[in-house]
């Protein structure tokens, strides 16, 4: 419940981000049963209506599947999860590029910056 939310974005979207992260990192593999709406609401310290909205939004995008009388599950459709992974990566890269371009960096400078960063001893895990 020590969860803090960014004030500038709807809470249901921030919970979506957390769930997406859990799925992509493999903490919640395909077919994982999700906590009940109320249990997750208690974990996050939010209104259960907010979690309901999160779940229905993720059902709409196909990431979660509701099975009648059984609960809500992470989709077993690997293609959907791969697509989600690509989509999140694209989104983060776009944010990064926008940030760099707002600082006036050219594409060549950015590419060079990434190469230098990767060669740097501190970051050789990349």
């Amino acid at each position, binding site marked *: *419940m020590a969860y803090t*939310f960014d*004030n*500038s*974005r*709807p*809470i*249901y979207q921030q919970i979506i981000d957390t769930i997406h992260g859990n799925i992509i990192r493999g903490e919640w593999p395909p077919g994982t049963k999700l906590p009940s709406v*109320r249990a997750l*609401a*208690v974990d*996050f*310290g*939010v*209104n*259960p*209506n*907010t979690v309901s*909205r999160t779940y229905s939004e993720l059902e709409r995008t196909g990431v979660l599947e509701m099975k009648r009388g059984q609960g809500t599950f992470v989709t077993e459709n690997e293609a959907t999860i791969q697509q989600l992974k690509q989509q999140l990566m694209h989104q983060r890269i776009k944010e990064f590029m926008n940030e760099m371009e707002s600082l006036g960096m050219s594409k060549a400078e950015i590419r060079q910056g990434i190469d230098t960063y990767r060669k740097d001893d501190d970051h050789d895990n990349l």
Partner: protein
Amino acid sequence: MITFDGVTKKFLNHTALENVTIEIPAKGVTGVVGENGSGKSTLLKLAGGLLRPDKGEVTYKGAPVSRKDSSRIAYLSENDHIYAFFRIDELINYQASQFPDFNKQRAYDMLDFMNLDPAQRIKTLSKGNRGRVKIVVTLAREAELLLLDEPLSGLDPIVRRSIIQSLVSFVDVEAQGVLISTHEVSEMDPLLDRVLVLRQQHVLDMEDSEAIREQFGVDTAGWMEHIYARERNVY
């Protein structure tokens, strides 16, 4: 729907609420916010039929509210007026004898959740634990509508957190309506479906709290400041 239609409430020569017209959804959690003396407590008492308007009408689900509605509306007062000579379990028995919708099992579940000893006398409780007991006896009622007047006021952060957690755990937002007046707007924010802003005896605005973030990129506290600033520029 809780409907205020042109409602004015005066106490002697002091106006507590003036010409308020608003429709508040009967389900979900509505935060009632505004500076001291803006009319929050009066609005809650009028919604519960504990006060009668001098002008206008307050209706709940289409019928005018009255004291008789206390059988389906639970009210938590901002005052510490629970019976000090009772033990907690005696208070629970007393409340159960007064309200048919009182769920004793739920009350004991909540005591357990809040680490309260049913055998303890109320007069020996700390202020924080008295605040917790008030929440327990209010939320243990399976009332359609809960009116909570400043449930967090004057309590330390740990008690506030346990009260907020018990609201998430024990209120059924799909079946019950909750009106909470509060100054702890940021702490309450994740719990609110919508927020109603009062200033100087008038309702300024009411908005869905997720829509506030979506449209304005701020939380309810930020939005309230924005609304207040807008008003100051008008007058």
